[in-house]
């Protein structure tokens, strides 16, 4: 297909020209970081990635639709975006939210996604994920989708065996597919901030106990008396 080859060469040339004409932007790496759980329901992951690419192309003076090659690239990007949305949904079911999209434009463009753990899974959640994966497999038998499911399963399995949880999942989509799981001990020491909050809760509880002991005849307002502050762990509950 000489026409396609020409397009490919043109694309490479274009990227090369862009890369070499902007020395400062040889690696214009863009990192979008958002706090977990605060992502709005829309735009979707694909739309967000698409917006990111569009913004970068706009900055570089390249407008989509300038020629057939770009239209074709846009269509491909849209298809990929749909697949990535599907993947983000699967990861969400498995308790992980998109945390970061990292994209760079150069001779070899790159796109990587970082997911962070948004919630631990209960046993029922794990059953639910398994069932959703099976349904996903029935609806989407393709190789790319199978790879997505394999990643989700790998994350689940990594957190299945004692003592560790997968805190972060980094996935490189371009140029070379790569998955990196960051495992942390489940009983890892708490961070400085968390320890400070726990100490404050303990201190406050002690103060309330002392005040109650000193003045038993003067009842506190119920809202102050009970319940005491406590960390978000209910003893005796099972997950």
């Amino acid at each position: 297909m000489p026409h396609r080859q020409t397009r490919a060469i043109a694309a490479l040339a274009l990227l090369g020209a862009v890369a070499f004409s902007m020395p400062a932007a040889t690696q214009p790496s863009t990192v979008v970081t958002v706090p977990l759980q605060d992502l709005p329901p829309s735009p979707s992951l694909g739309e967000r990635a698409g917006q990111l690419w569009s913004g970068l192309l706009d900055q570089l003076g390249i407008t989509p639709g300038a020629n057939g090659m770009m239209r074709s690239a846009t269509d491909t990007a849209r298809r990929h975006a749909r697949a990535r949305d599907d993947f983000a949904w699967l990861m969400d079911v498995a308790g992980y939210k998109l945390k970061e999209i990292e994209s760079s434009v150069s001779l070899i463009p790159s796109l990587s996604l970082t997911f962070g753990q948004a919630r631990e899974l209960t046993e029922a959640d794990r059953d639910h994920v398994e069932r959703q994966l099976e349904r996903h497999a029935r609806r989407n038998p393709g190789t790319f989708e199978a790879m997505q499911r394999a990643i989700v399963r790998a994350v689940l399995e990594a957190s299945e065996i004692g003592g560790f949880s997968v805190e972060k999942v980094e996935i490189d989509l371009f140029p070379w597919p790569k998955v990196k799981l960051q495992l942390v001990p489940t009983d890892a020491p708490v961070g400085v901030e968390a320890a400070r909050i726990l100490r404050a809760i303990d201190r406050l509880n002690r103060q309330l106990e002392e005040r109650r002991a000193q003045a038993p005849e003067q009842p506190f307002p119920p809202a102050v008396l009970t319940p005491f502050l406590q960390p978000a762990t209910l003893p005796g509950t099972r997950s």
Partner: protein
Amino acid sequence: MVPPELPPTSLWVAPVQTMEIILRKTALGLAGLLGVMLATLPAMATGSLTLRDRLTVAGTFSTEGVGRMLAQRFAEGTQGAHPPQLEVMRGSEAFERFCAGIGPDTPDFALVSRRMPRGVMEHCRANGVTEVVELRLGYSAVVLAARRGDIAPALTSRQIYEALAAERTSGEGFEPNRTRLWSEIDPSLPPREIRMLVPEAGTGMRALMEDLMLEAGCREVRAIRLLFEASYRRSKCVTLREDQRAVPVAHGEIMGALLAAPPGTIAVLSYDQLLRAGGNLLPLRLDGVLPDAAGIATLDYNQAQVVFLYAKRQHLPTREGVGVVQGLRALLTEATSERAAGPGGYLGLAGLVPLPPAERHAQRRVAERLSLRSR
């Protein structure tokens, strides 16, 4: 070749040399097993050739009912057998205990509602549990039913959660649930008082209801999804209100209680109980699917799950009766028998829905041959 399981002889007769040959065939746990067996030779000389006198099962909360029923009937129907010991824990813990190794201190079976993931299987192998038999016993399903002649509204698991939970969400916080009428949850529902009969706490059916109805119902609630800790989130989902709108009823009494309850009462029961009601109770559509055998078998009905039984073939005694425990094969055969897992089988009393006939036959063959899990 799988060594046949024979009843123990009256005295210790296997020479040490034979025992060593047998042990050499065992992959891991060889040294440990030998050590333990040599240490227990005096005890064995008194008549027992195995290291443990009863089977042990690592079960989960949602399979507890099936496990207890199976253990009880197995002990009643097998001469000289001690009742298997069932330990109930979370599914992940059950897998972990099962895969901890080979020997008398590890369970012979895992009874779970989830297929063993490949990663756990590899963990098993790494610990020497290389011969695992996997059986599908059937499905467990939890259904909603109303008395014939009553209104039978189609409900969603979200609506069930909102009707039964002790707390309801208010913004991103929680407040006590004071919802009185179904129509307060959704205007399309009838303006009837919320009255539900639910399985007693601590039973297998209650665990199923919590897993498949309440947790499923609260999974998409934003304020719940924001909670990171699994146990805390679950407690918010499955803690029931205590104002007599969710009345706990013993498993065997739920049908009678529903027939005697005020009109509009809805009961949570097993699919088997629904069938045994003989048309006096009508199933309610839940999440858009009416519970029937086909919907449960394809798992299109969301409130159903497969019950798996895993066994360690390496715990099987040899021809000479030397091994970890007696009765492993007998329990597998019992669990897959028609009287247990077939239509009308006693495991139905614990809520188990039978597999299709061909699948039941296939599982019986696996139990007879002790075929190993392929994946």
